[in-house]
């Protein structure tokens, strides 16, 4: 559906993306990268808002730049708020539907469907100025889906949404992908992306660092020692027992907080499966468990070094 071949985009001396080659099929694809990685630039190339400095981008087999026929089949939800505050949500979605060439006779029903999908029917007739961040996000998504595009591009769509809103939007995206449409979702939060899809494109400093199944990247991460942070009643009591486990390579106590210890493991899955029994045997309550390595920065660190 989307083919990108050797695409680079420079803003003067600043690089947006650098020699990116990939294809994006139907289904849900996540564009993962830290802030400034080039996600938004790639999205703007796909939505025809920018021309690549070198290379080529094709959507539905055509160059999307200023091409109405291609843009008619794309739904785009930008990261930033992009609307008139004095319009109501319904007016805004209607205007966007008109611009997307939805016939006037079908306009009201198409807008109503879109608003239903994002759970905004009740607040649709109040002005956007009164909307919360989450409501604005929903209206932006509604305008992107109102004309039933074949390709839906959502730039950080979960920003500002409450947990329920996130779940509803993820469910909407999955339903949409299951209908054979393509969805590209950008995010800088690994955890969020894992809940949505397995297929990712990983961008770092304008370069495509990895693409494919997120589980493979996870496996790659797991080849490196993995740090896990535990908060218990008494870290020194449970520490020796943890160190006895074959999967654990090292244990380190926190000098400032006697309840906290940090361990290093080469087999996190094995450690997690053993942790329950260990906690019961030590009769220690674990109040907090986290992995400092389980974030995007670590993924990039591993991929760049490894």
């Amino acid at each position, binding site marked *: 559906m989307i083919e990108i071949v050797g695409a680079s985009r420079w*803003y*003067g*001396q*600043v690089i947006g993306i650098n020699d990116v080659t990939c294809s994006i099929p139907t289904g849900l694809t996540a564009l993962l990268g830290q802030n400034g990685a080039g996600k938004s630039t790639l999205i*703007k190339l796909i*939505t*025809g*808002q*920018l021309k690549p400095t070198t290379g080529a981008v094709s959507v539905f087999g055509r160059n999307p730049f*200023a091409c*109405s*026929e291609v*843009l*008619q089949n*794309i739904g*785009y939800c*930008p990261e*930033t*708020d*992009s*609307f*008139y*505050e*004095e319009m109501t949500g319904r007016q805004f979605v209607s*205007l*966007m*539907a*008109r*611009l*997307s*060439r*939805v*016939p*006037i006779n*079908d306009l009201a*029903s*198409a807008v109503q*469907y*879109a608003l*239903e*999908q994002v759970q905004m029917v009740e607040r649709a007739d109040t002005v956007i100025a009164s909307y919360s961040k989450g409501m604005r996000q929903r209206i932006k998504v509604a*305008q992107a*889906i*109102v*004309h*039933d595009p074949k390709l839906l591009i959502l730039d950080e769509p979960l920003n500002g949404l409450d947990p329920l809103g996130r779940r*509803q939007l993820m*469910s*909407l995206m999955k*339903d*949409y992908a299951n*209908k054979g449409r393509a969805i590209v979702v950008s995010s800088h939060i690994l955890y969020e992306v894992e809940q949505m899809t397995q297929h990712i494109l990983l961008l770092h400093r304008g370069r495509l660092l990895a693409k494919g199944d997120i589980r493979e990247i996870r496996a790659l991460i797991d080849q490196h020692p993995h740090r896990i942070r535990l908060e218990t009643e008494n870290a020194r009591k449970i520490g020796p027992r943890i160190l006895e486990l074959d999967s654990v390579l090292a244990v380190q106590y926190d000098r400032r907080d006697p309840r906290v210890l940090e361990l290093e493991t080469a087999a996190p899955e094995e450690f997690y499966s053993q942790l329950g029994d260990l906690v019961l045997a030590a009769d220690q309550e674990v109040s907090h468990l986290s992995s400092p390595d389980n974030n995007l920065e670590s993924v990039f660190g591993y991929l760049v070094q490894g």
Partner: protein
Amino acid sequence: MSDTGAPPIADLSYRNYDGPKSVRGPRWWPIARNGIRLTLRKKAVFWALFAFSWLPYVMIVFQLFISSVTENVRGPERFIDLPKYPEMLSNAYGSWFFVFFIVLLAGAGSIAADNRSNAQQIYLSKAITKRDYLIGKWMSIFLVMFAVVFIPMFSVTCYAAFNLGLGDFMRQYGTLFPKIFVIAAIPATVHACVMLGISAWNKAPTIAGLIYVGIFLAWNLFAQIVAALLHDSLSREMRRTVDYFSIQGSISGLGQNVIGAMPRQFFDRHLPPQLPAWQPLLALAIVACVLGLAAARARIRAVDVVKS
């Protein structure tokens, strides 16, 4: 315990619009329509300015009324030398004050508001081109301005035709009706182009409006000062042309040339002065329009591109 019945089943599966995606009509129309709607939404200010812009035409009605009364009292020999209808119309056409405020109301925020709210990004991701966007924005100012100038002028001309006798009026001034279309389009075109160019380069509608006010007034003043300074060294026609060599001057001068009469008021007993030359004024209006549109076109883009 009362039985409230089962709650309605919410169908949350995705049901999207799957009809055709082509509508007749130009692609710029939704943008123009939205712009007009936003202007008309500023109800109190817009309608007040529109009402005030009728004042010069109310004066024409008054003059026509006086004319008919004195005719009845004293016969065809009137006690004052009333201006001819085209002179009255030319006078009213040159009254720019309230019309100019409507330009600011309709145009200052046209693109500036989109810049402020990043709306260009979302507009240009739809099935419209940059040209559609520009035409839509231009039309949203042009159509409002055209209506604001045309409606009172046409209404008063119709009144004048009936007041002065339809047959006589059509014989003498019949060509005024098509001319009204042209002269209403002149301020609408010039203001729409220049205002759009200024609006495109700003993020705050108020700043865009103030810049246009500054350019508009300063230019008018400058032209008049130059004409006064060169008073002795220029011919009468040239002096008049220099005096008109500004945005408002070109609009008024071209309009007066189309009407074929200079402004003359009720008690003004002097003969109307000579019309300014239309060629330099037309050239000035075209240059202003081209510059305005080029400035707007250069600034319209979905993304801010960092320059090296």
